[in-house]
């Protein structure tokens, strides 16, 4: 299964490499959302306080595009069915795709963060390692349920509408933890030192839950799809 997971990850990353327009499209979509929030903000002080939440809002909305597109590639020539029949272990398909989606989101996040910090005139006053950990855990927490729900909605008509409807209620609690933790680390100070690691633990628990359940249910859904 590990070999097949690597093979699926290789395929996903190779596809993204051969079609870079896809990831740049997701980045510009996220950037446009972030800029809109910046323009709509009543004052610079408020915007500075909202920097972390703005970043996650852009990423959450852009992630639906990324996850939806990840299945469009599979469905053009029904390659997903080809993988099931080849046969590739459904868990390998899930974990390979989910890791690739997490990497894609993290790349978008890395490109988006400097823009958000500049636009909000914010910095990272707290532990920078903790800040990176929040970004990584948040992106992986979005990718894990997104890869599962992307499979469910991918074959339905109007998948781009269905995916957020299913995904957002599941990821919002996790994203609240990510946004709160990110904002604390950006502000720095004793509250960041005290509360930051706690929010990270909450994020990690959500990650553990989503990655485990995704691996369990993906096989049932892919065989019955």
């Amino acid at each position, binding site marked *: 299964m590990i*070999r*097949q997971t*690597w*093979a*699926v990850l*290789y*395929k996903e990353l*190779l*596809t993204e490499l*051969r*079609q870079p327009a896809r990831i740049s499209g997701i980045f510009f979509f996220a950037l446009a959302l972030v800029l809109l929030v910046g323009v709509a903000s009543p004052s610079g002080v408020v915007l500075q306080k909202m920097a972390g939440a703005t970043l996650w809002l852009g990423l959450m909305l852009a992630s639906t595009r990324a996850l939806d597109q990840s299945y469009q*590639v599979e469905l*053009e*020539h*029904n*390659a997903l*069915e*080809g*993988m*099931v*029949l*080849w*046969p*590739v272990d459904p868990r390998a398909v899930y974990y390979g795709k989910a890791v690739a989606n997490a990497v894609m989101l993290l790349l978008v996040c890395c490109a988006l963060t400097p823009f958000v910090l500049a636009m909000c005139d914010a910095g990272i006053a707290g532990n920078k390692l903790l800040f990176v950990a929040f970004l990584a855990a948040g992106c992986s927490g979005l990718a894990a349920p997104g890869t599962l729900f992307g499979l469910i909605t991918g074959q339905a008509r109007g998948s781009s509408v269905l995916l957020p409807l299913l995904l957002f209620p599941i990821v919002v609690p996790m994203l609240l933890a990510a946004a709160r933790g990110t904002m604390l680390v950006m502000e720095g100070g004793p509250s960041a030192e005290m509360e930051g690691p706690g929010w990270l633990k909450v994020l990690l628990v959500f990650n553990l839950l989503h990655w485990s359940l995704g691996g369990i249910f993906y096989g049932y859904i892919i065989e019955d799809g």
Partner: protein
Amino acid sequence: MHGVAIEFDQVARRFGPRWALGGITLSIGAGEGVMLTGPNGSGKSTLLRCLSTALKIHHGEIRVGGQELWANRQTIRPSIGFLSHAGYLYDDLSGADNLRVWAKLGGMTADPHPLLERVGLPPKRLDPVRTYSQGMRRRLALARLMLQKPKIVLLDEPYTALDADGRRLVTDLAREFRESGATLLMATHLVSYASEACDRHIALLDGKLVDDAPVETE
């Protein structure tokens, strides 16, 4: 022939209220070449898709090598190669990249270039499959099938979109599969081409088997 490779026992499959297969009972010997014919909607593709395990049957039983197919699908799937209408290709990757990816997924170490040459595609071509014609995609899907080296080969309308050379290639490959001991099932409308690679002709109509006879050779 060495025993029975595939058995259909009262196999039925429906889509909504309509039965696409209405109780097919059939035995296919190991190494046999079977041509499936019938008008559009007669159940040829459904039969092949059920045998490939892409579709679950709603009634009856399919046995491959004496084992119930669906219950043992994970162990049987590697031995079944299926050329479907879809082709199972990645549009953004080149032909060689596609074969490399499928080889990696199957844990195989295969050089894609000889396979691409065999199916008449330029091996060094780097542009994505998106730019290929339908016929070239069909050839690439055939190369993917060859990569798998299956014991049971299922070809669903393999001659579609191919020129005369391509059709000859399909027949030659089908023969090669059979010479290597594989069992062949081919759904087609082009009886004249398929009869060169098959020795048995099964006709379907409205999901039912209406004829089962040896292929007539001139």
